[in-house]
Structures are given as C-alpha cells and as structure tokens.
C-alpha cells in the first residue's frame, strides 16, 4: 500500500480541500492585516484638535467672579471677568467654567492647563448637584501633584458654586466617565462636598 493510498483512506478529499481553502484564507487575511497596519503606521498623525467643542456664546455680557489658581505661590485668587452669559442656569454654569478653562489655556496663565483641555458640559441636577464633565485631554495633560491638582479642583468647584447658588455637591467626570484621580492625586471617585471645598479655598487664599 502506498502512502498516497493510506492518506486518501484517512482524510477524504473534501476535508483536504476545505483545510487548504482555510489555510489560504488565513494567509490572505494575515497579509491584508499586515498591509493595513503598514498603511496606518505611515499615515500622518492628526494634530490635537484644540478648537472649543461649542461655539462661543454671543449676546449680552455679564461680570462674573472666577477663582483662578496661581501655581507660583499655590493660591486661589478671585478675579473679575466680563463674559457673554446665556439665560439658562445650566448654560450659564457651562460658560462660566469654559471661561475659566480658556483663561488657563493662555500661555501666560498662572496655572497652565494642557492644550485641548475643555469643559464638555455641566449638568445641574436637583437638588443641589452639579456634574462637571471635562474632556480626556483635560485630565491626560494635567500636571501631577497633590497641590497642583487640588488647585484645579478647588478652582472649578468654587467658581461654579460661588456663581450658581444652591449647589451642595459636585461630581467631576472625564469624558463622561468616572475616573479615580485627575492626574494621580486628586480624588475624582466621589462627590465633592462644596462646604469642604470652601475650607480648602479659604486655606488657598493669599496670605493664609
């Protein structure tokens, strides 16, 4: 009996053909995947889109107080700003924080945030709950440190609570999701108690 006879006896022809087809398909897919990977690798990486997510609000301006962090002496200072403010309570809160963040995006800012940092939205939920949703770049490019992260958190929360009466607790989300910390230190897993943050804000006043 020849080897060929034995082979034919053990594996029917249709199975051999099926296995050959599968092998060819696997090889073709591998080549295709390799080609795609090469194409993606050689494609130019798109620059970070630093444009704001929402167009600037037009209309009557209003004087508001922003609580701006200063890294040099680790303080939080009240600064007056004239910004366009919509009429809705939630939209006002959003514009307020967007104005604060745009202040930090300026190169001459006393507390620089990474390029592309943005407040995506603010939700005001009854009773007394504010949810601030920042984008991924805000957290990913944030500098790490207990004080530097604490300054950002205190600045956001104190600015929104001082200008929007009735807020008792604040939650910070990153890209719509809960995150453990801002950049390795400031806890984002719980709701912030506005009263407790006010204590931090007082400690961060110049001269304290």
């Amino acid at each position, binding site marked *: 009996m020849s080897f060929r006879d034995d082979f034919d006896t053990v594996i029917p022809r249709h199975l051999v053909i099926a296995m050959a087809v599968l092998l060819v398909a696997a090889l073709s897919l591998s080549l295709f995947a390799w080609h795609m990977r090469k194409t993606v690798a050689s494609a130019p990486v798109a620059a970070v889109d630093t444009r704001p997510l929402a167009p600037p609000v037009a209309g009557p301006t209003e004087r508001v107080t922003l609580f701006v962090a200063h890294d040099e002496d680790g303080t939080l200072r009240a600064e007056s700003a004239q910004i366009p403010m919509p009429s809705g309570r939630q939209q006002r809160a959003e514009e307020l924080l967007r104005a604060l963040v745009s202040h930090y995006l300026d190169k001459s800012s006393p507390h620089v945030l990474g390029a592309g940092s943005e407040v995506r939205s603010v939700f005001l939920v009854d009773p007394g709950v504010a949810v601030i949703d920042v984008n991924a770049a805000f957290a990913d490019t944030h500098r*790490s*440190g*207990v004080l*530097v992260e604490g300054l950002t958190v205190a600045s956001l929360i104190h600015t929104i609570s001082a200008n929007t009466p009735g807020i008792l607790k604040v939650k910070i989300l990153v890209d719509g999701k809960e995150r453990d910390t801002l950049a*390795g230190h400031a806890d984002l897993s719980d709701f912030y*108690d506005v009263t*407790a*943050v006010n204590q*931090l804000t007082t*400690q961060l006043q110049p001269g304290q």
Partner: protein
Amino acid sequence: MERGERQDARAGRPRDSRQEAGATLSSKRLLWRFMVVILTLGALFLSGAPSEKHLSVYSLAANYSLPLVQREGREYVGLLELLEPLGKVSAKSDGSRWRLRYNNAEGIFQASKTRARVQDRDTDLGGKFLMENKRGLVPVGSLSSLLPRFLGGPVSLHEDSNRLFIGSAATHFTAALAGDNPPKLVFHFTSPVNPSIATEPGSLRMTFSREPLVGPASPTLTFGSKAIPSASYSEGNGSAVVTVNSTIPVMATFGNDGRTITVAPTAAGAAAQSAAPTGTPAAGSSPTPGQAASPVPVLTPAPQVPAARRYFAVVDASHGGDDHGETLSSSLLEKDVTVALARSLRQELESRGITTLVLRDSDANLSLDQRAIFANADHAAIYIALHAASSGRGVRVFTALLPFGGDDRGPFRSWTTAQHATLPLSQATASAVVGELQKRQVPVRDLVAPLRPLNNVAGPAIAVEIAPQGSDVSQLTAPDYQQLVTSAVATAIAANRDQLGAAP
C-alpha cells in the same frame, strides 16, 4: 461486482461501506486531536506566566523582598536593588564591565564571566554575571559568598526557600501546651510578628512573609494532645509557614504586642472537645450505625483575629510599580523619591523609639484600598503618606478633605469617610508637623486635600508633599534635605506620642 462493494479506481481494490465509515471516523478523530492540541496550546499561552518568585531579605535595617528572574537555568537577582535598602550604593556600567560601590566597598563585574573582583579579591559567582538594561544580575546562590565582602558581616542564605538573613536578623520561637481542658498552644516569639492566618479542615496555617522567622531544631513539634497533636515548620518562596494540626476547630489570638500567639479551640471546638469521648467509648456505649466512634470535627473558618497594634506609625511611600506618580525630571520619578523619604522617616521615627512599618519598601504595586486596609488592620496610631512634587516650594502637610455623604450605619463606618472621627487628631498632628518644619526654616503650608486613601484611614492620618526649596528638583534626592524634613516630621510625632497612642 457484488452489491455493497465498489471498486476503488486508483487502488484497484474493493472498499466496502464499513471501510469508508472507518476512514471518515479516522479523519474526524484526526481533526478532533488537531483542535485539542490547538486549544491546549492556546490555553497554555493564555494562562500567563507562572507565579513570580521572590527573595525575602531580612536585616536589622529593613525587611524587603525582591523579584527573581530565571536565566541560564538559575535564579538571578539584581545586586544593586538588593543592597539599596542597606546603605549608600551606586553602580556604573562601562561596556561589558559593571562597577558597584556599596559604602566603601567596591566590586567589579564582567558580563558573562563567572568570577568577580570584590574588595580586590576574586569571588566565584557559581554562574555567569549578567547585565540587562545596565542592571547587574547575579545568581542567588552566589549571595552567601558575595555579600559578606560588601557588607563586612555574615549572611545566611536559605537557598531552597529564597530567604536571606543579613547579620543577626532572626526571630526565634518556642511552642508549648498550656492547660488541658481546653488545650491551648502558646507560641512565644523573640520579636513581634503578624502572620497571615488561614484555617482548613485539620490545620491552622500561619504564614510569615515579612518576619525573619527561623525554625526550631526539629521541623515537627509534638505535644501529646488529642486536640492539638502537633505543629510543623516549613519554608518556601520567601516565606516561613507554621502549621498547627488539630482535630477540633481552633483559632489564633495575638498577645504581648505581637510576641505571643495562642492557638485555642473555638467555642464550638471547646464544646465538641468537652462533649466528645476522650478515648475509647464508655462501657456499654457503642456508636450507632452511621455514627463515627470518635468525634468528627466540623471545622469552620476561624473568626477574625483581633489585631493588636504592632506598629505605632505606618509610613506609606505613595505610588509604586506601574503608578510612577509625577515625573519630576527625565530621570526622576515621584515613586522613587517617596521610597527614599519613607526609609529616611522610618529611621528617624525608630531612632525616637517609635515602631514603624513602611508600607512600600520596593517598587511594588499597592492599591489605595490596600494601603488603607494595612493601616486600619494594624490600628496604627498615625498613618503618614509621603509625596514629592516639582511645583511650589517647600513642604505641604495635608489632612483629608472628606467627600460628600458616606454616613456611618450603626457600628459600621463608611469607607469613604472612615477618617471622620479622627480628623481633629489628624489636624492636630499636621499642625505639630508644620510647627516643627517652621522651626527648621522650611517653607510649609497646612492644607486639606481630596487625596485618597487619607479619607479611608480610620485612625489619625496625614500626607506630606515635599517640593524643592528652590527650583532645583534634584534637591528632592539630597539626603540632607530629606533628613531635614523627615526629622521634623518624626520629632512632631514623637512629641504627640501620648495623644496619638490614646486614639482608638
């Protein structure tokens, strides 16, 4: 051609339907075997690496463990990492040559060579010296001859169990029965211990990973008790294990500040012991069908061991492992600075008579929850988390900024606000630390921070973030600056020892 047969055209011989069925069956079996082999290989691949081996090092300065790597059929360890917690050490690589300096001793190693020159004398390594990413790796077996040259003192290597004892670091123990009814087995240790304890039917196992426990002359101890007949000592993968064999449910309790462990029957075990016949059945009695002649214990896990305070202070080197913390400079990570600070603070505290546990003494991953659990389980009088930063000037001392809500329920404390009850004491301690730093002319601030795990610690807890006094980040690694800060922290804690010690 007969019915039921057909002619195979190529082979020119008949094949009946049974042959055909057999052929199909064989091919199916072949395919099945092929699939089983593929699945097995896949499972092996996905099962991941085997459990990591490590070397436990015990010395009077520090107890720590290091990962071992398998190379050339031997276990290797990084020599620089091994000596780092023991003294001042530096290494320099020049091509295939690696020069290591420990305090005043110098060693020269050559990649792929089995001999090294330490203190101008040749030493056999028992295997090749390896260099990987400028790390010098030596066979574990060579440590017993290599380390005495560097350290100038004796070392004892338990190679089979990967345990290394430097100098006179060793904890001995004795075990003796106390009382008959119920019997108690009392272990006395020469220094405080805190083993992990597990029970299983017929035994209670105490695993000592951090203590330099050494065994008695005989690995098996017998006590002549029916309830607790024997105990045995064994070592493996960097740990020592004492197993108590028992015929009734037993539990362990700590005493004498962790120097004594008493193994005694649980309430159910004691009842079973007193109700059970002690030897042969009483005259006239006989076991009923289906009932055993001797008591068959139903063992349940021992209740939680009431923990005594073993360490007054728990020092937490924040970050570690995959969590680098802040990248302070291109060559300096926060996680490395915090370990150095933690070691310095431990030295300062212990020199003031304060027992101290450093939670992370190597580059290990430790979750925030684990850190709080360690501090809470030890009932530490003070928990100190250490951080380092490049921004700002001087030192910041933080207490917890508690999150909203998290009300306690009856006797249970909320995990997120566990710090609530002791926050005033934490703030008093922080103020004391600030005062000491001010005395030393170090710029310092006293703040609250949303920083875990401060809010999860049930006892007094503070965090200290150290930034350079000027703009030079390298000051964070300067021993004199580190000591300036850690000595101030230790002095403040020592001054508040009575107040902190009285905390629940």
